[in-house]
């Protein structure tokens, strides 16, 4: 059994002419919580979609559990995804189903368990995120943090071996954010999962992650444990970690000369 | 759970309503109703000219509908129009020397077939032909007849 659950090798990805990622090498060991960080719009979510096979790389390979994702058949891809839980940016709960039914969706789809067992399974998962009491609410009645927790329960209901989180903290208040952080760590350690967290919130991740990658300007500019990253002197890493306005990532979007633009 | 169940009932009701409408329309507003569940036998007859007679036109005796025209075609040899009718099996005592004429309801109305029973003892049965026929008289022929007293082929 390989030590790395996920392995991206020499990977490039482009939307038509526009290069998003170039020569990425990244591996994620089993059982760990790995953060992929970087400024907005550098293709962090693209990495997630490459891992789940929703996108195919222009060059290079994506391996999950020793199997190449981009060459998988549709059927095998779906089989692989049953073993992956994904928490999307805003939870993406089904708005026409209540909390209970939302969490039950993957179970109903992929098993023929009796109703009583489904109920028990769903309630256990909801209890784990502290929302057993909200079982009859509709998604529109939930706060952002609660919706995120329901989505977390739904993503982990089949006990996947890999959890992917896309910006799990975006738009949450401090209490909601620390709740999610603790849940990510707890589910990971309790279930022996591997977790990949995609985020731009530096401080929280430095606490949570075992290992982190920083992506900027199409490639990985820094990696290591949080301690190693703090000692990194690469200006791009320093800028991102400290949140400096100007630096290698410029404040200005590329433009023609200001004088020329204003004065003709 | 309960609300989902009631949605299914409503959907079922809608389907039922739609199917009822479908069958009701088919049986009351179309000629299917006059065919459904009624035994009939067919008779044929030949005319030099059927005028505006169309299939599904009523066939009557003494003004009462006893059947309908099923098909009108041209005999390729004699060039006579061959009319095939479906007659309700209730009326199975039509004598063999019955005559047929193509008549009109009102001046501009629809054409229909009128049968005039004769006095023969033998009766017509399925597939038989009525031999005594009178062709349709078109309105232009009528006018011509009265205005100019011209001898007409029709």
């Amino acid at each position, binding site marked *: 059994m390989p030590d790395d659950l996920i392995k991206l090798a020499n990977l490039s990805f482009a939307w038509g002419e526009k290069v998003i990622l170039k020569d990425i090498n990244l591996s994620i060991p089993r059982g760990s919580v790995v953060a992929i960080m970087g400024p907005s719009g550098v293709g962090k979510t693209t990495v997630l979609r490459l891992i789940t096979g929703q996108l195919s790389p222009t060059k290079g390979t994506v391996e999950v559990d020793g199997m190449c994702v981009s060459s998988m058949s549709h059927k095998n891809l779906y089989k692989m995804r049953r073993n992956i839980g994904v928490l999307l940016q805003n939870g993406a709960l089904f708005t026409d189903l209540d909390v209970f039914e939302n969490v039950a969706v993957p179970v109903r789809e992929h098993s023929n368990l009796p109703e009583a067992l489904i109920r028990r399974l769903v309630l256990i998962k909801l209890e784990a995120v502290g929302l057993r009491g909200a079982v009859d609410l509709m998604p529109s009645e939930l706060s952002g943090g609660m919706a995120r927790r329901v989505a977390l329960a739904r993503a982990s209901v089949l006990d996947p071996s890999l959890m992917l989180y896309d910006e799990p903290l975006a738009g949450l208040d401090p209490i909601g954010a620390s709740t999610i952080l603790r849940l990510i760590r707890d589910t990971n350690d309790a279930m022996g999962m591997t977790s990949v967290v995609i985020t731009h919130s530096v401080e929280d991740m430095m606490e949570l992650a075992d290992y982190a990658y920083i992506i900027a300007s199409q490639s990985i500019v820094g990696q290591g444990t949080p301690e190693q990253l703090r000692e990194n002197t690469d200006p791009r890493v320093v800028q991102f970690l400290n949140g400096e306005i100007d630096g290698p990532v410029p404040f200005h979007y590329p433009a023609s000369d200001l004088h020329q633009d204003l004065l003709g | 759970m309960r609300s989902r169940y009631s949605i299914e009932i409503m959907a079922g009701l*809608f389907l039922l309503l739609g199917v009822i409408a479908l069958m009701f329309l088919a049986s009351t507003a179309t000629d299917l109703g006059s065919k459904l569940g009624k035994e009939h036998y067919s008779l044929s007859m030949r005319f030099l000219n059927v005028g505006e007679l169309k299939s599904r036109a009523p066939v009557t005796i003494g003004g009462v509908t006893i059947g309908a025209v099923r098909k009108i075609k041209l005999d390729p040899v004699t060039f006579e129009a061959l009319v095939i009718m479906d007659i309700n099996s209730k009326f199975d005592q039509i004598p063999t020397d019955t005559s047929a004429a193509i008549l009109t309801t009102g001046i501009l109305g629809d054409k229909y077939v009128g049968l005039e029973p004769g006095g023969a003892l033998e009766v017509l049965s399925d597939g038989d032909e009525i031999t005594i026929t009178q062709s349709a008289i078109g309105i232009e022929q009528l006018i011509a007849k009265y205005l100019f007293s011209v001898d007409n082929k029709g």
Partner: protein
Amino acid sequence: MSKTNSNMDAITKPLATLGRSVLFFGQILAAFRPDAKMFRAILAQVYFIGARSLVIIMVCGFFVGMVLTLQSYVELSKFGATDSVGVVLALSLFRELGPVLTALLFSGRAGTSIAAEIGLMKATEQLSAMELMAIDPVKRVVVPRFIAGVISLPLLSMLFTLLALAGGATYAINIMGVDSGIFWGNMVSNVGFQSDFMMSFWKSLAFGIIASFIAVFSGYFTTPTGDGIGRATTQTVVVSAVVVLIVDFLITVLMTWT
């Protein structure tokens, strides 16, 4: 973008849309594997799509029947042929107005809501979430709505025609004093089951496939923004109307000359 490039786009874009719709139609057919879950989903959609369109269909039908009778009665009375008013009404309803008007009302009432619903599911990443849970969104979201639409439209069309006949009969018999025996009797002897009733049925089935497909297609391939969803709903109504009227002509030609 250069000018030649946008000229090319004018040709390639509609072609690409056409190709994508053919592929999507195939995808829908491939994903149509009826099981208990799909059956329940279809039934629920029959309620949302069909049953909820019932009132508008029936009200419109009743008034269309009345106004049609009024108009043809006025003209027919000039020839002393008011006995045929039922025939005129029934033939125009069965052959054209029933299926066509129902299809247009359907795409305005149900088609837009299907397109908006699927478009919103796409914009809020619900479709993406399904894919990631290894659930085929075409099978669970698109197919039930499509099939329910295909089932509902012919039934709605029949109900429309029925109510229109009722409206017409009410007007002709109760207000204009046409004998009810003559009204219905002439209708029965002049409306063919094969030629008129079945034409109505086949047309409404074809329109059901068209209007439902355009609705799910516009929703599924919408640009996932508020603006995009708005355009998808507009597109549903406009494209459905055009395609339905063109196909109506083609079916009529086909069924009249064979």
